[in-house]
């Protein structure tokens, strides 16, 4: 797997995170009693995804 392929594969991760966060937000709107838990979930997910992206894209070491 080349470096570009490796980094490109992170899009799949990002897509799944976005889908999970989107569904969670919809869930939160339908269940306001769980809005806070859903909000926390989305924040944690986005934060982890952002940190993963930072680690991958700012680290220019050899891939593959």
């Amino acid at each position: 797997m080349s470096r570009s392929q490796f980094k490109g594969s992170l899009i799949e991760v990002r897509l799944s995170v976005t889908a999970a966060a989107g569904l969670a937000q919809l869930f939160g709107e339908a269940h306001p009693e769980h809005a806070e838990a859903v909000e926390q979930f989305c924040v944690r997910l986005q934060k982890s995804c952002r940190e993963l992206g930072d680690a991958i894209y700012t680290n220019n070491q050899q891939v593959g």
Partner: protein
Amino acid sequence: MVPTLHKILTCSTAAKDHARRLLGFGSHEHNQALIRFAEEVQQAEDALIHSIETPSLTEIFNAVDCATRWAEKFGKLHAQTEAARKFSHDLKQVSLELQTACQMDRSFQQTREGIPTDAHLYDVLSWLTQVSSYARFVSVRQAGLCDAIKAVSGGSAPHSGNAARGRQSQPPSRRKKRVAEGGLTPCPIESRWRA
């Protein structure tokens, strides 16, 4: 459409799985970041589940039922019946260990309506996420069941082999003996845990 917890976990499970697939293709730092990401997503899932549900042992077994049924369906649709059969067998074994440790009398009957019509493997994995998350939750409440809970939690991925390893490390006969000797603290069988 109002998404369910299962749908949310399906997507977050996919994110974890995508990240794990990339392990080994990058540098050591990349691998560490990918592992950390998967762990953090797992923790976020746990927190979400525990915030909106009250997991019990019955919930664990219900989720196991769902995971095994969906895996068998997946296996048929993708000509992976042998792999699905082994996966189901392993998962049922560790569940039976937990059941034995808890001294519950429960047959593995269908407990949720509906048979899955799609063939997405992540559906199976998301049920396992619920299984392992429920198990971790219960382990906090039932400290005496930690060994059995860990065996179930370890089987969170069909390809991991943790389920099989957990079974080998604690055969049911030995576990029964430990329970009989007082090595494990049998949990009280509450009415809400009955099948």
